């Protein structure tokens, strides 16, 4: 039996490792302690609320977030703004609706059920406004990048002047962590760019961490529920496994053999 589990778990390890080693880039990402990692990982509410502020004030002018709704901002496990706050946030956006009784489209203040308003009508419009590059939708961005949160966090702080001899076209910038080191987004963050409602000092590092936390939540809105349920499920399975193990021993003892 020992032999069996040794082999079984090494197979799992080999596969886990080969998947990891594949997705790992050569660059070392900047490290920070994420509150949402680990068995009991939870989001830092303050970071989520600040991250939302950075997203709205900085990112959202180019990056859409089309799968997230305003109501999500008030939901459990998210930034947990109060419902009144979220209603006010939603109402501050103009949402296109219609057609009305006359068959015309009209704009109205946003409601809780509306999805985040997009900065551009469609991908083509976004490309036209950004020199041909489409600023990717941010809803699941963290999951869509091999390095995940560490990559995004590093990228935001990875702007440097290019090494000698590195040729950059117009509208292309040098970033230490970008694949090929060429990025079409200029450095967006600078110390004190936003004024945090909770008075936190808005350094580039702080803003990067906050907005990355926010992006992790938009990509995995049920992360906290998942961690909580996972812990319960695994504890339950272990208890049942122990019970079944002793029942098995008991049953097999009838024929005097080893299991």
């Amino acid at each position: 039996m020992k032999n069996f589990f040794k082999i079984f778990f090494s197979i799992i390890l080999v596969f886990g490792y080969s998947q990891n080693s594949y997705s790992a880039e050569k660059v070392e990402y900047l490290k920070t302690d994420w509150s949402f990692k680990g068995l009991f990982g939870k989001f830092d509410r303050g970071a989520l609320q600040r991250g939302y502020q950075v997203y709205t004030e900085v990112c959202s002018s180019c990056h859409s977030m089309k799968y997230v709704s305003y109501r999500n901002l008030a939901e459990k496990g998210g930034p947990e703004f109060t419902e009144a706050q979220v209603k006010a946030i939603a109402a501050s956006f103009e949402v296109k609706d219609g057609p009305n009784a006359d068959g015309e489209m009209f704009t109205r203040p946003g409601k809780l059920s509306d999805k985040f308003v997009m900065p551009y009508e469609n991908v083509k419009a976004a490309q036209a406004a950004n020199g041909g590059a489409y600023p990717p939708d941010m809803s699941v961005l963290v999951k869509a990048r091999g390095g995940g949160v560490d990559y995004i966090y590093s990228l935001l702080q990875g702007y440097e002047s290019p090494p000698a001899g590195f040729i950059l076209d117009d509208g292309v910038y040098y970033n230490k962590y970008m694949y090929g080191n060429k990025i079409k987004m200029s450095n967006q963050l600078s110390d004190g760019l936003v004024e945090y409602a909770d008075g936190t000092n808005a350094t580039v590092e702080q803003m990067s961490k906050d907005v990355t936390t926010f992006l992790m939540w938009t990509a995995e809105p049920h992360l906290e529920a998942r961690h909580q349920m996972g812990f319960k499920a695994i504890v339950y399975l272990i208890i049942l496994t122990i019970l079944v193990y002793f029942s098995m021993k008991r049953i097999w003892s009838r024929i005097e053999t080893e299991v």
Partner: protein
Amino acid sequence: MSDHEYTPKSKFGKWFNDRLPLLSLASHLTDYPTPKNLNYWWTFGGILTFCLITQIVTGLTLAMHYIAHADMAFESVEHIMRDVNYGWLIRYIHANGASMFFLAVYIHIFRSLFYGSYKSPREIIWIIGIIIYLLMMAAAFMGYVLPWGQMSFWGATVITNLFSAIPLVGEGIVTWLWGGYSVDNPTLTRFFTLHYLIPFLILGLVVLHIWALHVPGNNNPVGIDIEKPSKDTVPFHPYIVIKDGFALLMFMIVFAFFVFYAPNILGHADNYIEADPLVTPAHIVPEWYLLPFYAILRSVPDKLLGVVAMLSAILILAALPWLDTSKIRSAVFRPLYKQFYWILVADVLILGYVGAMPAEGLYLLIARVATAYYFLHFLVILPVLGFKEKTLPVPLSITEPVLGGSPNLATARNRESLNN
């Protein structure tokens, strides 16, 4: 096939059973005499049944929310992940369930290879198993296309293009598969239809697989034929049921770990980017369970021959009962085969590893050597080994090794008694 006549006790039971012998079937299944020395490698049959049922149940519930349309598929998956009650849980179980299913099936196949379970009189069980495995690959591939992410789209493009290697009709077949001039909405809808159908075909084949198994009965770690029922067997219920249950729970703990704590680790990040026919991702990689075959495909420099090699690598398994010429089933009594067996395991793992790496330089060389060895194992080593190998003496009954606790000890004891 029933081992003894079963008569229900109640009058209604008898009346019903005379018309539809369900009770006889149930009695056959619970009393089914199973070798008492089956080790934990034998629990994967039950685990695979669990995997199939899990995939069908979660798949059915996902299909209630999924929209098979090129413009809406990605969005509907996000809808499942965000809004549907427990949608995230069901989808993560289904996605990781595919990986767990393949993990279990590979263990099941390699168990069969080690203990010679494919040999006479179990060839049909083995061949049905190979068909199930092929259908699993088809279902998994088409399932991976459904979220309509970048890997879905480009994986579908690459795999369907394999058919273009067929001389003369290849291009026509690819267009027919696509229902257009590229992978697009018609491809998605037919893949969804087939992805829905295949699990039920697998279910039917599983019934045949078990039926065929119940004719000769289980093989066992010693690999000898045993009398059933006898001192060497135990009834399936409760002995095997509880043991399978225990192993299944251990398996479920690993499964739960993936679902709750690393749900995306076995997937590829690019599949969270919506499909874009204008941009190919930097690395196209299939899911891990297809990597060894992907490595074989890429190690052959010719398009047609590459496809042929990849298909042969799977189909050669169907001929295994006749390629392996040894009369002895279990590797326990085949010292040379045992070593070649572990070399094959290493070879397949290496193929899987290089399948994930870029097809260039050293990786390509390793892939070629490993591919060549894979075929060498089945086409040369196995047939020759059957004639040349000096096998160890095989015990007459399994009661002895069971008492010893492990087959190795039993062999030693057996040898001892022969010397005396």
